[in-house]
């Protein structure tokens, strides 16, 4: 009831639950995502997805349908509008429909699950994403991943590895995936399913076939636990960050799949040594990191790399703040080193 316009909490890290869920569901190529809410909730997200997909040379428009709620539906209830949108989407060439909620339909109490459970001739999957309930972008992702995982049936373990919860909006999403796939291939392991990145709906059925799940980040542990409880698949909680973490990642993945990973780890260790050697010109320069923009894992990885390079933190005014990226694997370290070189020689 306060009319004070000054925001007390300036944090922008939580994000929108709906956007998090859309970043997942829009990557099922042959499904439609319905956003049950006012038009703006989908428009904003279509723009965001379109822009970030273009950055990754993926020049298609996300298939997002809005129920276009107006004040009339808010007053009289929006379930009929949702029913119409689902029926309309079901008439198109689509394999499944995901229904995402918004703040306003959460407020007026539309029973989305009940509407979704009616008969439309194809799977209609509700994902709760009303952001005002306190959820974050990450919660939206997790809710969507779990809702999609529920589509899968029991299946035979045919091996391979699932990549869980890639950050589809990040600039380096393809590079990061390629690096993890490369690290796994060193130990002779291959990817079963990118859950969820540019896949067909029927591929979801095969999620239980993998022998190991690799989560993009520890924030996805609830999803990892869900899949472990349902299919018995163990998980590694994060993509690797930093030199030693990358080596132990290869070791853990191999071990989880019952493979001896020593040789693969050895190969990667020499590759890393060679890489660091190529950046000798950075030695003994003074530098440190800005902790405010990075997570603890990233800072730890950057410090380890600085140590390997003999960079000294420096206490005088000549210390340079180095960029710390969420560098994945050895390839991520290489990119970070190039950025450091640019910063230090600038």
């Amino acid at each position, binding site marked *: *009831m306060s009319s004070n316009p000054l925001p007390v909490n300036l944090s922008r890290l939580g994000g929108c639950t709906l956007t998090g869920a859309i970043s997942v569901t829009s990557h099922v190529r042959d499904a439609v995502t319905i956003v049950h809410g006012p038009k703006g909730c989908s428009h904003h997200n279509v723009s965001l997805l379109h822009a970030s997909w273009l950055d990754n040379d993926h020049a298609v428009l996300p298939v997002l349908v809005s129920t276009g709620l107006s*004040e*009339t*539906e*808010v*007053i*009289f*209830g*929006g*379930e009929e509008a949702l029913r119409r949108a689902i029926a309309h989407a079901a008439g198109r060439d689509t394999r499944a429909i995901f229904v995402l909620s918004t703040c306003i339909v959460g*407020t*007026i*109490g*539309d029973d989305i699950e009940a509407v979704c459970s009616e008969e439309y001739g194809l799977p209609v999957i509700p994902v709760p994403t009303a952001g005002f309930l306190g959820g974050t972008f990450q919660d939206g992702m997790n809710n969507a991943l779990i809702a999609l995982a529920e589509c899968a049936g029991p299946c035979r373990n045919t091996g391979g590895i699932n990549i869980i919860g890639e950050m589809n909006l990040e600039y380096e999403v393809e590079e990061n995936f390629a690096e993890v796939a490369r690290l796994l291939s060193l130990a002779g392991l291959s990817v079963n399913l990118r859950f969820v990145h540019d896949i067909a709906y029927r591929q979801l059925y095969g999620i239980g076939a993998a022998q190991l799940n690799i989560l993009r980040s520890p924030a996805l542990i609830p999803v990892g636990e869900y899949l472990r409880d349902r299919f018995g698949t163990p998980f590694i909680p994060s993509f690797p960050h930093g030199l030693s973490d990358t080596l132990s990642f290869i070791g853990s993945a191999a071990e989880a799949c019952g493979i001896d990973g020593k040789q693969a780890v050895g190969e990667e260790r020499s590759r890393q040594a060679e890489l660091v050697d190529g950046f000798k010109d950075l030695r003994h320069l003074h530098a440190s990191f800005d902790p405010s923009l990075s997570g603890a894992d990233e800072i730890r990885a950057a410090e380890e790399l600085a140590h390997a390079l003999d960079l000294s933190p420096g206490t005088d005014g000549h210390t340079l703040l180095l960029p710390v990226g969420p560098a994945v694997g050895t390839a991520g370290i290489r990119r970070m080193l190039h950025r450091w070189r640019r910063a230090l020689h600038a």
Partner: protein
Amino acid sequence: MKQIALYGKGGIGKSTTSANLSAALSGMNLSIMQIGCDPKRDSTRMLMQGRFIPTVMDLVRVRGEAGVSLSDVVFTGYNGIRCVEAGGPEPGVGCAGRGIIATFQLLEKFGALQGDVIVYDVLGDVVCGGFAMPMREGYAQEIYLVTSGELMSLYAANNICRAVQRLASRVKSKCRLAGVICNARGQPREEELITEFARRVNSTMVQYIPRDHIVQQAEVNQQTVIEFSPDSAQAGYYRSLAERVMENTWMTIPTPLEIDELESLAREFI
């Protein structure tokens, strides 16, 4: 123009009191408008010969806002009283509070809010911001609580005092508590109890309306008591209420009671 709103627990007799008050006011040669702010839409029935008039929200739902005009939503009933029902969604869906807000915006757009007195008859509990709309700036400045001596009814009245107190603290708000109307159910010492309750919340009991079977008789004949039996004693109470409302200038910021205070008050008068 005087704008008053009647609030109170569901089923306490707000609509009956409002309709009779409007009817009595119209007898004082005043131009009256009554607006029912409840999805149940039965506030103005007794002024309309028992007719459920189309509601603003019904019309908006069917025709869209652009297809609705002033003459579609205002109906002239007993003694020239202009009647409006806000209406709202079916029970259990949507957002009735938003419906009230939309109705007010539309009436404002039409310039419908005019006359000597506007009586707002509002849903029992102020469950959300929408039902506080009639108390906001530009609408009712005088709030009357309708209550009996029953504890639940006093609870509701006390809660409405909280809403008025909160709104009154806003800089531009002119909304004040104008008094308590005792719509008696006939329990012993009821008038004393309501007088004391009104005093404790920093107000006054403006009218005691005894329980009388004639109210039900008028209702089955689809009329207000004023119309059905103008010479009855009950009609006299409603006319007296109308006079006090017109004379009343004592507007206060209420001081709602704590729950245990309210309960011990009710115990005193058992």
